[in-house]
């Protein structure tokens, strides 16, 4: 009996070896982690997975770009009608603010976990990667980890001018499923800065953007290292580092970095020309259907949203929307926004018939661009050159030079130059307001300056809103909080 069993077991062992192949199953829509990172192709598939996640509503599809924080910066009229979908968020109701950011937390950390996976596999499967792939992927992913943590920190962190050491968010550098403690905001900022610095050193030698620019012309063959403006490239990382520096109050560093970006990247990321904005460059004649309203040539990094029109424009800004769901400002308010008639940024607005057949101003920055082949039809800018000029101006000690930076931007926008005798801070604020409609930057400008009175931009009669600085702060999602007691 004993021997029989032994033979039987041996037979089992033999058979089970043969069964292994039969039990291994392929799936048409999924792949196992270790199989994915078996070759360089897989690494780039995972890398693209990160970028393909950015256009989600909780990231740059809605929350971090066009809607959530621009509503809170009082760009759009959410007071009328009283049933407006963003009425409560525009009035800073606690519930609305909580729900507006909850998904962003989850999604950002989900993407961060994916980024960490790629970074870990870069080391464990280093041998399947070429040097270039290794450094570029690592550089972009370190930059991405820093960017997403920075986005989360801006929302859930303190006002740096007020309480830089307040406990804020966890900084995740590993995909391991263990809880990471909450860190003081300044420590998080240091880590973000560290990742940006590491990203820059990875990309410095290997990113073609430094020598060849955006590489967005049509080409056949591999696109892995092309269209650098749609990847987190060297200049984008540096620009974001400048944004971080000014956010945490390091004006000197911010000014230096912004200056470097302007110097080095200026030629590759030129200001949009009148011809670009009117669509003339694209199709030969000026046409509303081809207007480059996002000033794509100067976008250092953009998220690619192939459904931009339906995801963003049609949901929040279209003239086909009922007033309750529409985000726009009053006719006169739009007029008052720009101090020059010739300002190219006025192309971001159009007068169209609303659902009741009445003329109304609509925000068309993310509107349909007829020819989808034009790269800018699907871009949602994350960081643009213009911000570098504004940072440079803000960080400049000499007022005259500061106005030079500001007027450089204004002249590119075909707006009249401002005299250096004005109040720089006010002029900068006004320029921030004009420049970043629909990009979700203004609120953070207010937050870092701890503004207690902010403009009712949407209002035809102007005016200011008394702003409680507590509304710059967002509580951690409950599901997160309960694990950090």
């Amino acid at each position: 009996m004993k021997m029989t069993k032994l033979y039987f077991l041996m037979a089992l062992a033999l058979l089970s070896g043969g069964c292994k192949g039969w039990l291994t199953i392929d799936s048409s829509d999924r792949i196992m982690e270790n199989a994915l990172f078996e070759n360089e192709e897989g690494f780039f598939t995972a890398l693209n997975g990160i970028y393909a996640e950015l256009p989600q509503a909780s990231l740059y599809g809605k929350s971090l770009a066009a809607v959530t924080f621009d509503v809170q910066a009082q760009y759009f009229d959410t007071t009328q009608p009283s049933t407006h979908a963003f009425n409560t968020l525009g009035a800073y109701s606690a519930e609305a603010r909580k729900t507006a950011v909850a998904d962003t937390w989850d999604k950002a950390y989900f993407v961060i976990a994916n980024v960490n996976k790629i970074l870990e596999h870069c080391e464990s499967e280093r041998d399947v990667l070429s040097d270039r792939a290794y450094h570029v992927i690592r550089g972009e992913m370190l930059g991405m980890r820093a960017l997403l943590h920075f986005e989360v920190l801006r929302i859930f962190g303190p006002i740096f001018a007020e309480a830089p050491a307040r406990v804020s968010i966890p900084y995740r550098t590993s995909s391991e499923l263990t809880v990471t403690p909450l860190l003081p905001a300044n420590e998080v900022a240091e880590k973000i800065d560290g990742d940006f610095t590491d990203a820059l050193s990875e990309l410095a030698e290997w990113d073609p953007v430094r020598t060849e620019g955006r590489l967005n012309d049509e080409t056949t063959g591999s696109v892995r290292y092309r269209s650098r403006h749609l990847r987190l490239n060297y200049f984008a990382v540096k620009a974001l580092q400048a944004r971080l520096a000014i956010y945490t109050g390091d004006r000197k560093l911010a000014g230096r970095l912004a200056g470097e970006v302007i110097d080095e990247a200026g030629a590759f990321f030129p200001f949009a020309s009148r011809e670009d904005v009117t669509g003339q460059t694209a199709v030969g004649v000026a046409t509303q259907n081809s207007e480059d309203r996002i000033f794509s040539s100067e976008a250092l990094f953009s998220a690619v949203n192939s459904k931009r029109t339906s995801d963003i424009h049609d949901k929040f800004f279209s003239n086909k929307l009922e007033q309750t769901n529409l985000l726009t400002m009053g006719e006169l308010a739009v007029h008052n926004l720009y101090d020059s008639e010739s300002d190219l940024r006025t192309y971001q607005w159009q007068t169209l018939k609303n659902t009741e057949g009445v003329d109304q101003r609509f925000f068309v920055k993310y509107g349909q661009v007829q020819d989808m082949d034009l790269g800018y039809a699907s871009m949602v800018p994350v960081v643009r050159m213009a911000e570098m000029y504004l940072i440079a101006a803000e960080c400049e000690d000499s007022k005259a030079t500061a106005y030079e930076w500001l007027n450089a931007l204004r002249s590119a926008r075909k707006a009249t130059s401002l005299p250096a005798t004005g109040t720089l801070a006010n002029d900068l604020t006004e320029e921030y307001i004009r420049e970043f409609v629909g990009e979700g930057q203004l609120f953070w400008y207010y937050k870092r300056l701890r503004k207690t009175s902010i403009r009712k931009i949407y209002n035809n009669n102007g005016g200011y809103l008394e702003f409680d600085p507590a509304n710059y702060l967002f509580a951690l999602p409950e599901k997160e909080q309960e694990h950090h007691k």
Partner: protein
Amino acid sequence: MKSTPRIGTATDAKGEFHLQGIPPGKQTIVFTFIGMVPFEVEYANQRDMDVVLKEDATEVNEVVVTGIYSRDKNSFAGSATTYTGKELRAIGTKNVFQSLKTLEPALTLVENRAFGSDPNRLPDLEIRGKTSLVGDLTTEYDNTANQPLFILDGIEVEIAQIQNLSMDRIASVTVLKDAASAAIYGSKASNGVIVVETVKPEPGQLRVSYSADLRFEFPDLSDYNLMNAEEKLRYEVLAGRYVGEDQDQLDALYNSRLAEVMRGVDTYWLSVPLRSVLNHTHSVYIDGGSEAMLYGVGLNYSDQKGIMKGSEKGVTGGNINLVYRTDKLIFSNDFSFDYVKSEREPVSFSTFAQANPYYRKYNEDGEIPEFLEPYSVAQEFIYNPLYQLRKVVNTDVTKDLGLRNNFTVIWRPVTSLQVRGRLALNKTISEREAFKSPAHSDFNGSTSKGSYTTEKTDLMSYNGDLTVTYGRLFGHHQINAVGGWNFSSRTQKNTGYEIFGFTSDLHQNPSFSEGFQQGDKPSYTDRISRSTSFYLNGNYSYRNRYLFDASLRMDGSSVFGSENLFTTTWAVGVGWNIHNEAWCKAKWLDLLKVRFSIGNPGNQNFDAYTASGTYIYNSTYQNLFGTSAILEKFGNPNLKWQKTIDKNLGLDVDILDRVKFSVDFYHKNTDPLLAQIPVPPSLGTTRIYTNFGGQISKGFSGSLNVVVMKRQYLRWSVNASFSQNRSEYRNIGDKLDFMNEKGSATTFKRYYDGASPDDIWAVRSHGIDPSSGREVFIRKDGSYTFKYDANDEVVVGSSAPDLEGVIGTSIFYKGFSASVNLRYSFGADVFASALYNKVENISETALYYNLDRRALHDRWQEPGNRARFKAISIDDTTPMSSRFVLRENYISGESITIGYETSARWLHVVGVKGASFRFYMNDIFRLASFKEERGTDYPFSKSFSLSIGLRF
């Protein structure tokens, strides 16, 4: 005919037989019957023959059918019980589980308080309690984590296939409860196994049997206790419904409602969507043939209307069995098909339960209004559920077609050896179509009204096994051995889509819709899973006194992402038949057996075994860089399979064939547990599977059957079954403390070492203070306070009953039989959530719906009131306290039946050889120590039924 086995016959119900074509000369005729000693008679041309068979003492009872092999129960060391189809049909005819729960004490049919008697819900079954965590810590999918494994004619099937099986097709059901009996199913067996064998054709002349079952089912609303119109309005006033900002409008609203109440409007909405139904089931089976060639053809139809209007399930099925036998080979093929059409009720019962009694069903013109109250008065749309039921098209129909074919070859080269090969094919196509009218209340305020949903599942599986069985007696040594190999593959394809925008109910065709909603896509998944296993079972007995049983199984499965494809399970059982000992002089003792088993069956009802992470290709946002993939599931290489060390000690006693007693004590130690726990979202996911601690489940179950009276034609017996189960957590540590903290005051489950999953945690309550109407809590130190503090929480009860089971009696007299089986349960506590939510804690929105009468009458109203519930005016949330934990003892009339069997001469006139009639009352009453709403989404029902069986 001993010399020529091809010549043979079978008796009819009365035991009469005719044998023709007997060759001349002296012959021997052999009479056999299951459980009887074969008897030989010399044939010498006599015309009549009277034969009485003797019971086979060594085969007093049944055999244990594990689906892979069969064993004589006497020499089996495991804990398993077999019930015949006849026994099950004597309890009820609704479905096999309903009858099985009455007979088998270890089986629990978890009562679903929400879905009552819904014919389209699958039951939730447990054998010997839970080994896995369910509830807060798991996903919906895992709620089947404690479900047993179902085997139909040797093949693993889904629970639905067993539920839809016609009761007349069931030959036997075996419940495998402990490790030794279930170990042959290895890694899937930790929750026990239910093995169903269907009726096989028997040799003889062509036999036709027909049975019909008529069931009258009617709603049971006795647990409801809702307010009438006057009470509801009064309650609303007391709760401050008509005081607010826009006082004029609220006054108008109140006056309008008051006018209705004064007019005598008092609608009893509960009964509106309900009906009493007469359901019928028919089944025909034809079988016969010679020893060499047997056939059986069956056809069955069942129409089960639900007690809610519009809910129905129709099952049509058929089967063809063919058997061909030669000396050493048996070929058999079973083909069967099932067609199930299920329709769901269009409006949920809870919608009617919520409707306020001061609304009218019909307006003055006798028409059904779309809204219960004009918008101008209510300032909101209050949909009329009756309008939604009658005037709006809202259908949800699922059609399933299942085809199954089992082909078996058995080869017996010598009597002691049998080789069996089996191949089963299973194909199921299921299609669901649901249409929601544009007038449906779900589309209030949306622009694209009306929807059409379709889902299609296409399942193809094959399953094969090869088993070698050896059994031989060497002197006093009986040896049985089974070895085998099994493989199975299953391909499932799900497709579906949902489209919106219809103009009217007239055009339900999807081509009339506006199409997909923005961003929607059709769904399409394609999954293949495969598994293979090797198993070995050995059994040895010495003089049928000392029994030894051992099993080993190696399972390999293709769980996607798993690196450890194989897992091994084992079990060992020993038994001692004391009554067979030479020194045991007690002749009255027919059976005295002690058995013990231990093993480590696994549980594969989890979707968690992912050592490596998986990525899913992403197609939502495409870009010029080509394909992209994102993490779908995080890998966790350290995750361990959940295994249970299952120990069982059993005792079987049988005295003079009059007293039968059987009891099993079990102890299941699941260590480590595998559960899904919430993690901070900063990990990149919100829930992960993790191993932690363990869970001990222990308890006992048993049954006693005493024949009180035994006369020539009379047999009266009483029976009782009982069970108890207790569980507790081990080695959890502080890993789940955050769950405890989060759950304080809002849930009653806590996770501590030594705590039980059945415990109910809450702060003790001293009742309502008569002077203020506020609740008085009891602190841990015993002092009283008005202030609720979560730190004062203690265990205030346990949801596990101290004892539950069935007591019954049955009596047979000639052809008559009658039985009564009552279910009892004592000592369980329940958290009365209906009281908690419908008497107190009435949220602002709940105030708009009808409420429990006790919210008005039993609440504190003025100083001096000794009330059970706090003041109506106090509208802050009531924390969970012991006030809502109540003892629930109950007795219910699970099955009461009267039957009559006859083969009287008058039947022969119409060509019927035998007939049986049986009248059933199922769940006819329920006496409970406390009453609470049951069946909130679908009410419970009571039923009477009559079944008729005819043999031609």
